[in-house]
C-alpha cells in the first residue's frame, strides 16, 4: 500500500480541522515558499516535479504557471472545482476530507504567479462544500495563513468561493471565466489563453482541484521525491474514480502507470453478478470506448499509454461496462448528456449533438437500419475538429468508437428493420 498524498484524510481522522492539519505537515510548504523562496523558484520546482494537470488535459502545471504575462496586472488564480464529468467524483472527496491541503495549494500557486486574489469555482450542487471552504478560509485568515502581510512579508493573498449553477460547460476554463464575470458560461475563442488574457482581461492561471492539492507535497518533499512516484513522463499519484459495473466503486489514489487490470480487478474486486467486462471508458462520458481485452487491461493508466488504445486518460474517471450492456443504449446516454449540456454557441456542437441524439434514440429503440448507423457515424465525423471547445469534440468519442469497435451490437439492434 503506497502512502496517500491526496486522500490523506482516510488515514488521518479530523484532517479537515485546521489544528489536525497543522499537526500533519500543514502549511509548512506555504511558510517555506513565502519566507524562503522566490516566486519563480516555486514555479521551477513545480516544473521540475513533472506535475501535469489533473482536470483532463494533462498539461504540465509548472509550464502553465511560467506562461503568466508579467506585463499586465493584477494576476489571478482560479481553482476549477466544477467537477461535472459523468463518472468523476474525486475533487469532491478532496474538498470534503482534505480541504486545507487544497487551499494551501491554491495559496502557493497565487504566491508563485504573484496573484493577490484567487477564486474557487464550484459547481452549484457543491453548495455545502462551498460553505465548508468559506469556514476553512476564515480559519486560515485567523491563523495568519491568508490575508495581509503573510508571515511578516508584504505578501497578501485572498481566496474567494464562487458557485456555478448547473452547467457542465463551465468546467471548460474559458467558459468558467465568463461565468465568474457574470456572463453566460460559454467558451471563448482561443488564443489568447488565460495566462495571457483571463478573467477581467487579466493574466489568469486556471488549475484543477486535484492538481493544486499535489503542490504542498512537491514543495515540502521536493521535486525529486515526487518524480519517484508514477512513471517518468507521468509522475505522481492520481485519483482514479471507479464507477459503473464494478463490485467496489469509489476513489482510488494510485501511482500513474497502474494498469487497468490492477484497478478494476484488484482494487475494484471485479465485475458483479458473474458478468464479463466488455468495455472501459477512461475519461468519463468524454471517453472513447476501449475494448476490454487482455491488451487493454494490461495497459498502464498514464498520459502516454492510454492513447495507444485509441483513447485518453482525461480526468481518470474509469467507467466499467459489462457484457449485459448494449452499446447503442450507452451512446444514447452519453449523447443525451452532451446535447443537454451543449452551450449553443457554436453550430457544429449545437446541431450535431441534437441530430446525434435523435439518431441514437431511433437506433436504441430498434427503429433504425444500418443506414441510420452510417448516418450517425457521418454526422459525428463531420463534427470532428470543427467545434469551438472540447465539449463538442468529446461528444463524438463514444459514438465513433462505439460504432467502429462494437459493430455487432449495432447489427443486432437494427436487424429487424434491415430485413
Amino acid at each position, binding site marked *: 500500500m503506497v502512502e496517500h498524498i491526496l486522500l490523506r484524510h482516510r488515514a488521518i481522522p479530523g484532517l479537515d480541522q485546521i489544528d489536525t492539519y497543522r499537526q500533519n505537515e500543514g502549511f509548512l510548504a506555504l511558510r517555506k515558499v513565502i519566507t524562503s523562496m522566490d516566486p519563480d523558484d516555486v514555479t521551477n520546482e513545480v516544473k521540475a516535479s513533472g506535475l501535469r494537470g489533473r482536470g483532463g488535459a494533462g498539461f504540465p502545471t509548472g509550464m502553465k504557471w511560467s506562461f503568466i504575462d508579467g506585463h499586465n496586472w493584477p494576476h489571478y488564480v482560479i481553482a476549477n472545482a466544477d*467537477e*461535472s*464529468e*459523468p*463518472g*468523476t*467524483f474525486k*475533487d*469532491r472527496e478532496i474538498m470534503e476530507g482534505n480541504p486545507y491541503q487544497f487551499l494551501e495549494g491554491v495559496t502557493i500557486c497565487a504566491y508563485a504567479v504573484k496573484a493577490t486574489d484567487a*477564486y474557487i469555482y464550484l*459547481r*452549484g*450542487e*457543491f*453548495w*455545502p462544500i462551498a460553505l465548508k471552504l468559506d469556514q476553512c478560509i476564515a480559519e486560515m485568515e485567523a491563523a495568519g495563513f491568508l490575508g495581509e502581510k503573510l508571515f511578516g512579508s508584504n505578501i497578501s493573498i485572498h481566496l*474567494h468561493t*464562487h*458557485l*456555478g*449553477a*448547473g*452547467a*457542465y460547460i463551465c468546467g471548460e476554463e474559458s467558459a468558467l471565466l465568463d*461565468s*465568474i*464575470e*457574470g*456572463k*453566460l*458560461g460559454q467558451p471563448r475563442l482561443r488564443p489568447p489563453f488565460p495566462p495571457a488574457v483571463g478573467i*477581467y482581461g487579466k493574466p489568469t492561471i486556471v488549475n484543477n482541484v486535484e492538481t493544486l492539492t499535489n503542490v504542498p507535497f512537491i514543495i515540502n518533499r521536493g521535486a525529486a521525491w515526487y518524480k519517484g512516484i508514477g512513471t517518468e513522463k507521468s509522475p505522481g499519484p492520481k485519483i482514479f*474514480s*471507479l*464507477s*459503473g*459495473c464494478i463490485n467496489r*466503486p*469509489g*476513489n482510488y489514489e494510485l501511482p500513474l502507470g497502474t494498469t487497468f487490470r490492477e484497478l478494476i480487478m484488484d482494487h475494484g474486486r471485479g465485475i458483479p453478478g458473474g458478468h464479463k467486462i466488455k468495455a472501459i*471508458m477512461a475519461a*468519463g*462520458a468524454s471517453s472513447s470506448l476501449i475494448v476490454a481485452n487482455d491488451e487493454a487491461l494490461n495497459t498502464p493508466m498514464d498520459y502516454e499509454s492510454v492513447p495507444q488504445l485509441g483513447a485518453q486518460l482525461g480526468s481518470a*474517471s474509469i*467507467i*466499467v*461496462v459489462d457484457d449485459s*450492456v448494449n452499446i447503442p443504449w*450507452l451512446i444514447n*446516454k*452519453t449523447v443525451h*448528456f452532451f446535447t*443537454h*449540456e451543449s*452551450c449553443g454557441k457554436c453550430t457544429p456542437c449545437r446541431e450535431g449533438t441534437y441530430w446525434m441524439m435523435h439518431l441514437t434514440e431511433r437506433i436504441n429503440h430498434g427503429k433504425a437500419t444500418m443506414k441510420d448507423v452510417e448516418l450517425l457515424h457521418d454526422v459525428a465525423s463531420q463534427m470532428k475538429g470543427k467545434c469551438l471547445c472540447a465539449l463538442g469534440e468529446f461528444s463524438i468519442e463514444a459514438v465513433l468508437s462505439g460504432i467502429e469497435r462494437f459493430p455487432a451490437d449495432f447489427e443486432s439492434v437494427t436487424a429487424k428493420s434491415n430485413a
Partner: protein
Amino acid sequence: MNGLLEKYPDEVQAILAKYPSDQAGKRSAVMPLMYLAQRQDGYVTKDAIGQIAEICEITVTEVASIIGFYSLYYDEPSGKYHVQVCTDLPCALRGAEQFLENLCQNLGIKVGETTADGMVKVEAVMCLAGCDKAPMFQVQSPEGLEYHENQTVESALEVINKLRQG
C-alpha cells in the same frame, strides 16, 4: 428603492467585496445575488431581476438570460422541494433508471411531475458527482441542497415523506 439591498445589506456587501470594485467586478455578483433572491422566494422574481440588474449595473435582459442559461435558477414557482435523481451513465449502470421509475410509481406521478400536494417535484438530472454511491439524488429546497446516496426506493420514500410533512 432596492428591496434586495434593503433586506440583505450585509450579504450584498459581502458578495460585492469578493470581486473588483469596478463595473466588470460588479457584474460578477450576478450569480451569487440570484441565489440570495432565490433563497428568499423559491425562485427569482421579476422584482428581484430588476434589483439584481441595478446592483450589478447591467440590463434586466442580461440578468434574465443568465437565469435561462443555468439549470439551478428558476424564474417561476414550482414544487417546494425538488428531488433530483441522477440517471447519467454511471448511475444508470447501477440501476438508477429503474429506481427513478419505481419511485415515481410509488408516488403516483410521472418523472418530472409534482406530487398532488404540490410539495415534491421528482426529476431526472445530469451527473451530480455521486457516481460510486448510486442510486442517488439531491434535494433542492429553500433551505439549501442535500445529497442522499446509496438509496433504495424505500429509503427515498422515507426522505420524501419527511419533506411532505414539513
